[in-house]
């Protein structure tokens, strides 16, 4: 039960705003089917919506429909959502000031602040020309 790969669920969507609804439905179903406490849902929904919208707005210089892959994993006390896109290399965890110094955009400043506040761990990697961003949240089972 502690092996995250045993609990892996995936979703492939496109880099369009409307697909955030599919992402939200996917998250709700994953949380429900894995007996993860419901209080986790609101925080994680907002964190991944902010991540996804950042991708739809900024990841691709050339307009078009590009796939965005979602992976959900859990252990007995954590849930992790990974969002993968093939857009321009972009680490959302870099501070806004740093990005401005590098003449990079910083429109998502409010979004990344929300993501950091609502999740316990955030990790960015550039793997095979793709941005791989994972947020993790700890949970405890509530007993009545």
């Amino acid at each position: 039960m502690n092996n995250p790969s045993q609990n892996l669920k995936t979703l492939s969507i496109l880099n369009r705003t409307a697909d955030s609804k599919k992402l939200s439905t996917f998250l709700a179903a994953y949380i429900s089917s894995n007996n993860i406490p419901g209080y986790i849902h609101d925080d994680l929904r907002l964190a991944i919506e902010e991540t996804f919208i950042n991708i739809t707005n900024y990841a691709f210089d050339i307009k078009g429909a590009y796939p965005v892959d979602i992976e959900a994993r859990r252990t007995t006390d954590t849930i992790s959502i990974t969002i993968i896109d093939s857009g321009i290399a972009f680490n959302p965890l870099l501070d806004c000031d740093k990005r401005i110094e590098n003449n990079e955009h910083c429109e998502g400043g409010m979004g990344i602040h929300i993501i950091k506040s609502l999740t316990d761990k955030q990790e960015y990697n550039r793997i095979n020309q793709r941005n791989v961003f994972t947020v993790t949240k700890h949970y405890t089972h509530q007993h009545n």
Partner: protein
Amino acid sequence: MSLEISITPEADNSKRIAIKGSLDSNTAPELQQIIDAEINDTTTVTIFDFKDLDFLSSAGLRVIFKTKKIMEKNGGKFLLVNLQPQIKKVFEIIKALDGMNVFKDQDEMDDYLTAMQNKVKEEN
């Protein structure tokens, strides 16, 4: 995950905007269109009622802040009422409640508006 918006004109060119559902990247443009059509330099008070709002993202926050800016520029009042815990949490994360007129419920807001109107009458 849809959004329902109802606008109630109130006394003295005030507008109450009640928002139900999810104010996110999909629905924020709809609210922005309504704000653009309904709020202008004759609007004295704009009230956002969040009693039935269950999700708010940064896209929605941007519409709210833009409306606040318009009201402040025009010398009007901008009020928020009935923030549910999950919505209040988002405002707190980005430290946006300071300097905002936020009321826990209708009664508290009514007291504020009555006091404001009495003050205006006294000044006149």
